[in-house]
């Protein structure tokens, strides 16, 4: 029974780890942390395997674990960031070890712009638009109501647009 559980987790890992890592990375913007949180996601999935009720796909379930872990992590990290900024430590916004994980040139601007959005906007865009989850699944992962998912996305896309304009990647003209 345990052997079976382990195999299933390994199988899930093969299918979903990259997607989950990408999601966490966009949220925490630090590769090493993203990898650690991905690790924890699958270990948690193993531990709480019995509580997986198959009401949703395993992918949705894994994402909701990843989301919870990430939110916890970000909450804990906040004071540290505050201190760092107070002491004027250099802030490293996209520490991607190139040789391990990288993003193709064309998408890099988008990655950066997303990184500047506030957390709620960022995650709703990632889940709905990048990962292609349905509104229902997104609401399960985030623990939001479906209408909150819709309204947040409704505000998030213009915010992303604004950010891209601000960084000069698209011109104001092009939007109108």
């Amino acid at each position, binding site marked *: 029974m*345990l052997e079976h559980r*382990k195999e299933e*987790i*390994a199988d899930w*890992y*093969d299918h979903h*780890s*990259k*997607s989950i*890592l*990408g999601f966490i*990375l966009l949220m925490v913007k630090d590769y090493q942390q993203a*990898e*650690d949180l*991905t*690790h*924890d996601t*699958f*270990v*948690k999935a*193993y*531990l709480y395997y*019995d*509580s997986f009720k198959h009401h949703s796909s395993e992918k949705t379930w894994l994402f909701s674990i990843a989301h919870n872990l990430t939110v916890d*992590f970000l909450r*804990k990290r906040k004071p*540290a960031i505050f*201190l760092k900024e107070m*002491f004027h430590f250099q802030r490293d916004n996209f520490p991607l070890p190139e*040789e*391990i*994980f*990288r*993003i*193709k040139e*064309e*998408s890099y601007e*988008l*990655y950066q712009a997303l990184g500047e959005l506030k957390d709620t906007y960022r995650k709703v*865009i990632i889940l709905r*638009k*990048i*990962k*292609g989850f349905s509104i229902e699944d997104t609401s399960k992962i985030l623990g939001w109501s479906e209408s909150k998912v819709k309204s947040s*996305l*409704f505000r998030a*896309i*213009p915010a*992303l*647009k604004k950010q891209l304009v601000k960084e000069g990647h698209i011109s104001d003209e092009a939007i*109108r």
Partner: protein
Amino acid sequence: MTKQYDDTEFDTPLKKLDSDFLWRTKQKQELKNRIITDIEKLESKEKNKHLILSNRRKRGNVIRKLTYSGIALIILCGLFIGSAFISPVMAEVVSKIPYLSKIFHSEPINRTILRELKEKGYKIAGLGGNGRYIFISIDGSEQYFQDVHEEVKEIAANLLKANDYDGYKIKVERQIDRPVPATSDRDQAISEAVEISYDNLIKLQFNVLSSGYQHLSPNSDKVIINIDIPNTEARIEEIKKIVNESLKAKNIDSYSIKIHKIDLAQREKEAKWNEIFDAIFEGLTAKKEYKVTGFAYSFHPAPLQIIIKTSIKASDKDANEKVGKIEETINEFLNSEEIQNKINGDPYEIIIRGKNKQRIN
């Protein structure tokens, strides 16, 4: 005119962003191995499941906390020492700080040594100690151990010296991993049942602090299920019922359930004393002059007993002087304003035992 918002505007580039992530296969495989290894560890040691998840993150936190408190401390010390140079009054204050208070405010020596060694890149499996020895165990091959054990010992010795500690001997050993015995099916079932009953109890809003089980003796089939609850939780029979059900569901017999009622207020009070005990222990064992070999305490029955074990013989001609010095050192620390604020005047009694284990004060 209001601009119509187009929900699908960035669909294509966003969709593309996902496929534009490139992750090295080797890295993916390595992470997978790490996960599988940890899962296997869990299988063999189901009880420690929370350790694996939290270990790494905690360490990060500690390091971070240490860094920041370190920075703050350096600044504070700078100000403090600076002012001591200028003002004779301040210099007086500095010299009057009780010896143990200084230790109370510094990093435990074990942690300092471990941190220094790790920073220097040595593979340290662990560090422990008692009143006389500091044990450092080194990871890696026999060859590696031969190569580094003297350096490691020297670094640790220098750190002790820097703190004026002369009471510890250092032992450097090689870590030898013993295979963890496989868990039997029955143990597996019991630990699952305990886990399920814990989850159920929490779901039903019982206040459970922790749960676990132990074998009565190494070769006995009989197990004891331990459940810790606050002493304000009165529904003991209900708790037993739920635990019984989940054990029954796994066909487990010959067990008994022990419910421990924990006085949370008392526990909190004891927790406050812990850091104080650490300082007393380190301060007294680190210096030979105190002749202290061990430490113990007991909260029940009240008042708190602080027991100091020493190698002083009652017949020694300076026995009284030594005993007096230990008492004075502890009292001076515990009666300082800072500690009194923490312990709110809790009564305590100091018991000093000599070489023959008899009380000598």
